């Protein structure tokens, strides 16, 4: 079966700074891939190339469901199939929770408002905040906002979901509720690519963990391979530093 996301020889530079240098990554349908690594290693840049929020250098290529991701007509088709959850939520503050969720399906997929609305309520139930449908994002906690953002992305019925450090700007007590929702998604077979600092989540939920440093994939493998038997020194150093002073309760 062809990969839903296929990245070959991906390079990206800002002037002389090489943010990504030669990334190859394939993600199969139904797979959950967690990308971990130090800040500035290019993790976010990598997943932002998948829906072209970042452009990439010409020699590489990113395919989503076999279609090259590039400027032009195909781009919106790709973006319809790729949901994204941001670190800073990026909900539309002038719309209610329900309107946030309904907007893209009605505008982009031409789904009738009735159908879209009832689906929005189902999604809100799925992320555990059905009672907040009429509120505005500003009235919700960070954890609730991020769950709305997940529902909003899911409403487009994407083939793959990208998560760009979805819990990094949350207060600690709200991280768990968001990870719980993401775990449910993973269990229900949603294809997910997750940039995260939550090692417990990566170990527990990922099918594959990718460790990046300095714009390259250092190594990739099952959570057990990466967390318990890392082959590369850099991976072990990073994991020791991160896990050393973080309690692993959630694990």
């Amino acid at each position: 079966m062809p990969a839903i996301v296929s990245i070959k020889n991906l390079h990206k530079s800002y002037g002389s700074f090489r943010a990504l240098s030669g990334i190859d990554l394939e993600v199969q349908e139904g797979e959950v891939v967690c990308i971990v690594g130090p800040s500035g290693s290019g993790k976010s840049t990598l997943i932002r190339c998948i829906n072209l929020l970042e452009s990439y250098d010409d020699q590489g290529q990113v395919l989503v469901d076999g279609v090259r991701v590039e400027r032009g007509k195909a781009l919106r088709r790709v973006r319809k199939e790729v949901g994204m959850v941001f670190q800073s939520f990026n909900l539309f503050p002038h719309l209610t929770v329900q309107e946030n969720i309904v907007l893209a399906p009605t505008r982009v997929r031409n789904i009738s408002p009735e159908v879209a609305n009832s689906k929005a309520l189902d999604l809100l139930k799925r992320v555990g905040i059905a009672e907040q449908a009429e509120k505005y994002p500003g009235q919700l906690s960070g954890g609730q906002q991020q769950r709305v953002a997940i529902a909003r992305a899911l409403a487009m019925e994407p083939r793959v979901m990208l998560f760009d450090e979805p819990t990094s700007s949350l207060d600690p007590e709200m991280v768990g509720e968001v990870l719980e929702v993401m775990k449910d998604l993973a269990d229900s077979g949603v294809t997910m690519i997750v940039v995260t600092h939550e090692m417990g989540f990566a170990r527990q939920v990922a099918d594959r963990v990718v460790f990046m440093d300095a714009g390259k994939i250092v190594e990739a493998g099952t959570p057990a391979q990466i967390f318990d038997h890392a082959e590369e020194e850099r991976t072990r150093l990073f994991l020791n530093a991160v896990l050393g002073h973080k309690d692993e309760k959630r694990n």
Partner: protein
Amino acid sequence: MSFTETFLNWDVLVSSLPLLLSGLKVTLLLGFVGILFGLLLGLFLALVRIYAIRPVSLAAKIYTDVFRSIPILVLLIVIYYALPFVGLRLSPFMSAAVALTLVSGAYTAEIFRAGIEAIPRGQFEASHALGLGYRHMMADVVLPQAIRIVIPPLTNNCINVIKDTALASVVAMPDLLKQATQAQALEANPTPLIVAALIYVALLWPLVVFVGRLEKRYRREER
């Protein structure tokens, strides 16, 4: 003659009132036209300035800079007295409407641009990521938020446009000021001028208060 007989003469007021009201109608119509077309022009210029290719965007910038530098009175006189030499003869009303629109458009362009640029990048990214096209992104996400930001400065601009309509009296347009000076000459009494001034204030004071309240409210909400 007493002060009231001179400046607030009832009989003069009553006899000049029809003239003043007809002037007010023209002033309001001119203000409305200038504001409406200024808004449309400004929105267009702002979008061009931000999103068009480089040379076109530069042209929009030059336009807004030039038309914010030129005094409306000068522009109006050029349009009314100079353009006929190249065969373009506009009525006083058209001349004034064009001058007001051109200048108001430049100011509203800057206001809209500031409003759009105040929208966080994440809003655009979320729209892109959801697959929204440019039209829907602007209409459903960006402009509704930008409009809230630009309402106070836009209202200020409306106030200025309405004030500037009085300049049209120099090209003999029968607006409120022109009719007031006519009536003053006719009655040999300044009461019509005083009444005209009061009408301008009565018209614009509520808008001034409205802007002040909005600005105060937005400041509070930001905190």
